[in-house]
């Protein structure tokens, strides 16, 4: 077999999220975190279904969706490869932004907010900041 794939998928049947979407979301998350990089090969449909016992068409549907978004490309007979990363490189390579957020989160906690409060506040600010942005 060729070089092994860079990631594997975990399927949670009780999550209520469609199986193909779980694969799409996990791939995007891996792209955001830099676990997947351009040129990496995604596991073949056969590899995914053998490990997860899901339907092959589900995997192909997820890969088509990722391809449609320009994140991966299928190369005939070779497999499906990552074309580009997702989000700004700052997510992984800009420690100052992360440090500021960590500091802010500490202050929120010290002010008596619990995890759900912080998450709600963050989501609210996120939504209003990116309002009208076509990607949000």
């Amino acid at each position, binding site marked *: 077999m060729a070089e092994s794939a860079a990631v594997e998928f975990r399927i949670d*049947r009780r999550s209520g999220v469609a199986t193909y979407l779980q694969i799409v979301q996990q791939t995007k998350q891996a792209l955001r975190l830099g676990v997947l990089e351009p040129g990496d090969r995604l596991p073949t449909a056969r590899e995914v279904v*053998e490990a997860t016992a899901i*339907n092959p068409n589900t995997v192909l549907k997820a890969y088509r969706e990722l391809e449609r978004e320009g994140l991966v490309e299928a190369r005939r007979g070779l497999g499906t490869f990552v074309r580009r990363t997702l989000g700004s490189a700052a997510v992984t390579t800009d420690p100052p932004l992360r440090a500021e957020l960590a500091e802010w989160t500490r202050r929120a906690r010290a002010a008596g907010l619990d995890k759900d409060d912080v998450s709600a506040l963050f989501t609210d600010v996120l939504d209003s900041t990116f309002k009208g942005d076509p990607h949000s």
Partner: protein
Amino acid sequence: MTGAAIEANGLGMAYGRRRGRALSDCSFRLPAGRICALVGPNGAGKSTLLALAAGLLRPTEGSVRVLGSTPAEARARIAYVAQDKPLYPQLTVADTLWAGAELNPATWDRAAADRVAGPLPQDAKVRTLSGGQRTRLALALALGKRPELMLLDEPMADLDPLVRHQLMGVLMAEAAEHGTTIVMSSHILTELEGACDYLLLVEGGRVRLGGESEDILAAHAVLTGQVRDLAPHTVVESRTTGRQLTALVRKEGPLDDTAWDVTEPSLEELLLAHLRSPEAPALLTPSARARAREEVVAA
């Protein structure tokens, strides 16, 4: 894919005068390349349907065609694993696999058979194997034959969860690589839900739901709201508690989502609702409808 893996027209089967009919006027089409869950209550006719498609039973009415020919003509291209996993009890595991290779010289794939039968004690006689081990051996024979259509009657019933997951993975890998059509019967729907993309619900000898699981689900909705008329939608099942009505309906036109909280049912909800409501009309998606016989002849 345009070909049909199975096409039944007015299929009926009676085992004897007294026992009534196991199947009657059963018509449907299963497109090739699908992984189909064959579900229904005990005694619904699932095993009869599989045995007819495998050519082990002769229908008393109607006809069934498999991979474009009669079941007898297609036998070399079909693998059928019956519920009781019939094997020769006096043969060893190794002898059984050898027989599989000898009987299917043109297609035998030793690697595929070994992938499933590998963990079995090769010198053990079949009669000493546990139920789960016999299932493994029967599936190894079926996979080794490298069929175009696999008919599996309750294949996972006596396997532990780990082996069940592993063997389901092997079956899915086979389908991914070779486009094999697989029909699996079960009354435990959850074991099939992620693996199957096609659904046949058989009850009382007839097909009540047939088609792509996604399309069948999308054709229905669960509505919750104040008690009111559900027309024009077809009500499969409804329950009223105080002022609240919960209904599983088949959509006939757009849903008024200002009046109802609308969600898509899970496959299990959908099947249970149909089993509790025998009067709900049958639904076959276009790909699951058997073509009239004249069209078949003309095609």
